[in-house]
């Protein structure tokens, strides 16, 4: 089954073009908040828009039929090549994006950042970019939205930068991301060109067109490499992760990393575009990709152990677990793809939660150096327990969404790569548990030093941010069924292109 894509238009499923609303709402929000500038209303409105987007996302989920393999709620507007459609997998990520943005608006308040109005406007703009990437089925639109989102993050990093190190981190970030973006765009052009060759001069970047005329031979390999590495920089996948640790250490503490790695659009893009558009190349290069990812799990885990800064450590944790997602995805097995997507959402939620807590700690102590932190448990036990719980979610502890997802990946991995490599991969998780526990003990459990920082108690807003994230995580962890239901058929459809 090479093509096999089908779609259901929005007017068959809902009374309104919901996906358009989904993209316009945060965009309008950004504009409104921008107009209100630094007035108090801007902050309130920002929160309302973020919450509205979350509720709208839930409405959209209620309108799609997860049992249909088709892409749904489709909207087309040919003159602009505008074409959007979603399935269960995209909606999983849309909901995550909306939830994280909402939490970030709460977080931004509690951290007392300067000019919150502007911050919220950029945040909503970044959300527009993310949602746009998730709902579009056109590679060019994907690239454009990706550019919008990257620009927002760059603006965030620049506007709130206050030291040379931050500017340096920003420069590194821009270099990497621009490079990755250009690679992706080049991949799009190869695809569009291939389509033009095949159809006699008709250029298209639409997934539905491209999937019928995938490039052959070397062109497909080229397209695969350009798209894959373009997204790998974004993901970030070892060994293209160089921008993340610096940005994590010197950039805005929670907001920027959460926007970049909280929602794994890189992994999503691979699933949505790379797998269907370059199937032969994917199958040919599968062992190499998986080999690199396996090396990445351990190499970055080893690097994480070397870190003395909590923020850098988390950055390496992200790279390490992202490799695990790629292993799941490139098992090309329905459970593996489903597991990778669920795990990506779980990681996003958990790691963002951890980043929030690091931000709260930084506000109190002014540092995230592990050797300067001590005895935080005594003062902020709730945040400490939340930190550990998020860490356990990353490790795939039962009761968190990570468990069922890791379970699915293991199943796929045993099937595809055999038991030994599966055990090796799973041990990567233990390594992650190792450095996360180590950091936890250093920062939270160790004996408080005399003359250390005077640490405030947990505030209500902090309870709220971590409480919501934690509650969402545990609820999904113990009631995984709806999420499995939401993603199952879509994962089968994604895996159906590959013969096993």
């Amino acid at each position, binding site marked *: 089954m090479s093509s096999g894509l089908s779609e259901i238009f929005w007017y068959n499923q809902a009374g309104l073009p919901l996906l358009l609303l989904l993209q316009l709402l945060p965009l309008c929000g950004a504009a409104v908040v921008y107009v209100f500038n630094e007035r108090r209303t801007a902050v309130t409105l920002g929160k309302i828009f973020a919450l509205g987007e979350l509720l709208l996302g839930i409405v959209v989920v209620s309108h799609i039929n997860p049992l249909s393999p088709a892409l749904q709620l489709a909207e087309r507007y040919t003159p602009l090549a505008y074409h959007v459609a979603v399935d269960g997998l995209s909606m999983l990520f849309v909901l995550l994006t909306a939830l994280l943005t909402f939490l970030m608006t709460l977080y931004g308040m509690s951290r007392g950042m300067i000019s919150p109005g502007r911050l919220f406007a950029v945040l909503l703009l970044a959300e527009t970019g993310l949602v746009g990437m998730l709902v579009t089925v056109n590679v060019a639109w994907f690239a454009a939205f990706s550019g919008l989102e990257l620009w927002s993050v760059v603006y965030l990093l620049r506007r709130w930068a206050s030291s040379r190190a931050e500017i340096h981190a920003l420069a590194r970030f821009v270099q990497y991301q621009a490079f990755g973006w250009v690679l992706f765009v080049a991949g799009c052009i190869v695809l569009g060109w291939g389509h033009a060759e095949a159809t006699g001069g008709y250029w298209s970047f639409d997934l539905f067109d491209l999937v019928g005329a995938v490039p052959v031979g070397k062109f497909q390999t080229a397209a695969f490499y350009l798209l894959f590495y373009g997204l790998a920089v974004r993901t970030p996948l070892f060994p293209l992760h160089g921008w993340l640790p610096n940005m994590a250490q010197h950039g805005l503490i929670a907001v920027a990393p959460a926007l970049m790695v909280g929602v794994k659009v890189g992994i999503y893009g691979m699933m949505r575009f790379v797998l269907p558009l370059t199937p032969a190349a994917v199958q040919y290069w599968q062992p190499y990709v998986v080999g690199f990812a396996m090396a990445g799990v351990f190499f970055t885990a080893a690097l994480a152990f070397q870190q003395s800064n909590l923020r850098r450590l988390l950055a390496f944790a992200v790279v390490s677990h992202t490799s695990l997602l790629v292993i799941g995805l490139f098992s090309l097995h329905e459970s593996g793809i489903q597991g990778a997507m669920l795990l990506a959402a779980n990681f996003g939620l958990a790691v963002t939660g951890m980043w929030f807590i690091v931000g709260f700690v930084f506000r109190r102590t002014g540092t995230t150096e592990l050797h300067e932190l001590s005895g935080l448990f005594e003062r902020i036990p709730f945040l400490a327990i939340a930190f550990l719980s998020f860490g356990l979610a990353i490790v795939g502890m*039962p009761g968190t969404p990570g468990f069922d997802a890791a379970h*699915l990946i*293991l199943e796929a991995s*045993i099937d595809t790569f055999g038991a030994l490599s599966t*055990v090796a991969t799973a041990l990567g998780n233990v390594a992650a548990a190792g450095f996360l*526990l180590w950091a936890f003990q250093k920062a939270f*459990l160790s004996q408080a030093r005399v003359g250390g920082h005077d640490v405030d108690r947990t505030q209500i807003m902090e309870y709220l941010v971590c409480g919501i994230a934690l509650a969402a995580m545990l609820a999904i962890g113990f009631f995984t*069924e709806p999420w499995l239901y939401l993603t199952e058929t879509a994962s089968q459809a994604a895996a159906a292109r590959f013969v096993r």
Partner: protein
Amino acid sequence: MNLPLLSLLIFLPLAGVVVLWLLPARATRPVVALNMLLTLALATTVLFAYDPAGARFQLVERLPWIASLNIHYLVAVDGISVLFLPATALLFLASLVACWNAVQDAPRLHYSLLLLLQSATVGIFCALDTALFFVFWEMSLVPIYFLLARWGVSSGSAQAAARYFLIMLAGGIPLLIAFVMLAASQPVPTFDLTVLLGVPLPRSTQTAIFLLCLLGFGIKVPLVPLHTWLPQFALAAPGSLTALLVGLKLGAFGLIRFAIPLAPEAALDLHWLLAGLGTVAILYGAVGMLAQSNLRVGLAYASICHVGLAVLGLASYTAQAAQGAVSLLLSFSVATGGAFVLLEFLRQRTGSTDINALGGAAKTMPLLATGFLICGLAGVGMPGTSSFPGEFMLIIAALQSHTGAGMAALFGLSIAAGGFLSLYRKAFFGPVTRPAVAEASDLRPREWIVLVALILMIVGIGVYPGPWIEIVRPAAEAWAAGLGR
């Protein structure tokens, strides 16, 4: 009676946690005590509701949990697990008494974790769905990690906690892989133990599953050479926590419940492996015990030795061995658990459980010394104590099936008995030289009430073992029949 007794038992401690945080902090200990007493009462009710002559699995509750993966919330008890429930409840109660005054710092959190651990432990004994079992299995790690890292008694406790957690997490991997392989081997993937038991698997799959399970459970048992976490743990943890961890033989239970019945042919083929590991554990534990000067570590080695006997006996795959193993494990829950609780009493009084810091402790603490002696003798299988029937059945089974190993086991057990008495003599007899020992007071009322309860069980079951063993017998016979014996 149609109450979901087992679910009540599993969720009662969790309800206790909620109540704990709703009430003011000073109500903490009474609430926990009440909760644990209720759990004990409920566990006893389960025991009475269980009919040994009835179906294999009773009090079954089955609810769909994750339907698309065919994972159920499936709990039930059989003769193998039913007695562990009151033993668990009793041990947690004893542990609570042991840390009654010792936890001054964040007591609500401490007791919440203890209740969480109780819930997970009960869940482990009741779960018949392998995925559900695994959830409870891993869930028990978090409270243990926290209890040790935050309330440990030595400077290395955070390190010991992290080590325990990581080793157990690594041990979970082979288990999870085995369970996933089992599920995938069925025409319709399932995690339901009752279904899995009925469908024979190809020999090679069985071997893989048996070895993976042996590895996963062996770490928890612990079998030599997977035992390295235990001595460090025993040294770093307060006795109240070690009592739970060493007293509840979850690893051996896992072997009996999952590893052997799920891969019967592989288990029969690899009987030499199981017997060998058991024998090595007996000898290693006994010799290791001789080298210790700290009573807590000494007891940890003794427990390695005794679980080794259960494993060796199991390798004969007879109903008698299974019956013996279950009753021995239960007896150790009470005896070893009780001994660790008493050591915690001792540590709170003298600040140490090292024999070099003790000496003559029986003079100032006669009740404690007597209690420890009785628990310790039960630990070495003295006739008249609750361990004797089980130990006897196991040794007979071992001598019949693996004569050489059985002889070695007898030898190892005598060394262990000697080792225990030697440690006991140095710590409790002789002149009092340390001021801490001289000033120590004997057991308080709430402490000796617990002690008397434990001793009554040890001696009562030892003198009149019939009813208890009979509860286990039908299930043990069904277990052996499943192996074709």
